[in-house]
């Protein structure tokens, strides 16, 4: 039986506090000029930048679809800037993590979901060097697993699957694996 997952302690609290601080600031403040609520002005969108995401907006940006006369301004943001844009309410519409929206709601801070963004069909995997001898996820007990962020979508999925299907304790600290947060460039 998979062991239940009970993350606790200072590390988890710091992560939650950071997320709440990030979300609380924007939602308690006034909308800056870039996020006008005046009807008829341009609708502004902030999207975290990734080459593939340009695929979604190319037709819109190149006059291939009807915008109903609406002036739509799309800004692509480096990931960290996207977080700041959400914090500062810099855009009328901004891309966010579903978990960030839920955390905001739990704190009584209102944002709402206009649409889905990306669906992960088969994007997230665990890779290993063939020289490591690790061939099966069940062999990861006691091993070091690199992640790009402790709160990222790929990490959440990985923790969930390794716990539910392989019975590993996937707490970020003190579990069956040693999670190591590292920029992907170093892998």
């Amino acid at each position: 039986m998979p062991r239940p997952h009970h993350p606790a302690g200072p590390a988890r609290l710091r992560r939650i506090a950071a997320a709440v601080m990030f979300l609380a600031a924007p939602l308690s403040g006034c909308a800056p000029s870039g996020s006008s609520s005046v009807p008829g002005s341009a609708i502004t969108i902030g999207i975290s930048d990734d080459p593939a995401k340009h695929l979604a907006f190319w037709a819109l940006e190149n006059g291939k679809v009807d915008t109903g006369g609406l002036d739509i301004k799309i800004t692509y943001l480096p990931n960290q800037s996207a977080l700041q844009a959400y914090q500062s309410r810099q855009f009328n519409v901004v891309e966010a993590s579903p978990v960030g929206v839920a955390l905001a709601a739990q704190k009584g801070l209102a944002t709402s979901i206009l649409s889905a963004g990306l669906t992960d069909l088969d994007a997230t995997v665990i890779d290993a060097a063939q020289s490591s001898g690790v061939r099966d996820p069940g062999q990861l007990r006691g091993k070091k697993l690199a992640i790009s962020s402790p709160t990222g979508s790929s990490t959440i999925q990985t923790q969930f699957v390794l716990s539910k299907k392989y019975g590993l304790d996937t707490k970020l600290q003190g579990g069956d694996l040693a999670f190591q947060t590292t920029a992907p460039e170093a892998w």
Partner: protein
Amino acid sequence: MSLLSGGGVDATTNLNKPRYLLEHTPGFAPILHVSKTVHEILGAYPVTTVLTTYPEIERDRKDELTTLATALKASTDYAREHKPEVIAAVAGGNQADVDYLNWWATTSELRYGNLSTPDEAGINAFWTMANAVGQLSKIPSLAELKSVAAPALAGK
């Protein structure tokens, strides 16, 4: 790749360009397709990003938000229906090559402007996972978090 090849770590959770590069390098391979396994367990593919808006924007610009979402859906549909054209255009402009973008399109789905039943299931799947691993203390109600401009998208 020095950490992996040098034994500094045993494995990596990986996606997008880093995964593409790693899997096109001899000596590395996936040992688990994580998001596919999420689908096996929860019956939904996880929606990992959403478009959000704010109360005053919804209050004052609801119809425009609906128009925006409709245009975003049309743009997303265009990308799917004219994939070679759009990939060729984007590949020239932002340092992603055609091979990578074609590969990426097999691993992820663009859903901007959509909020259909599978999208809702994917958002709930993500919340379920976050709750199970301790990042969310409770799973929220999507009905309560859905924009007033979003119901027009349902079923599309």
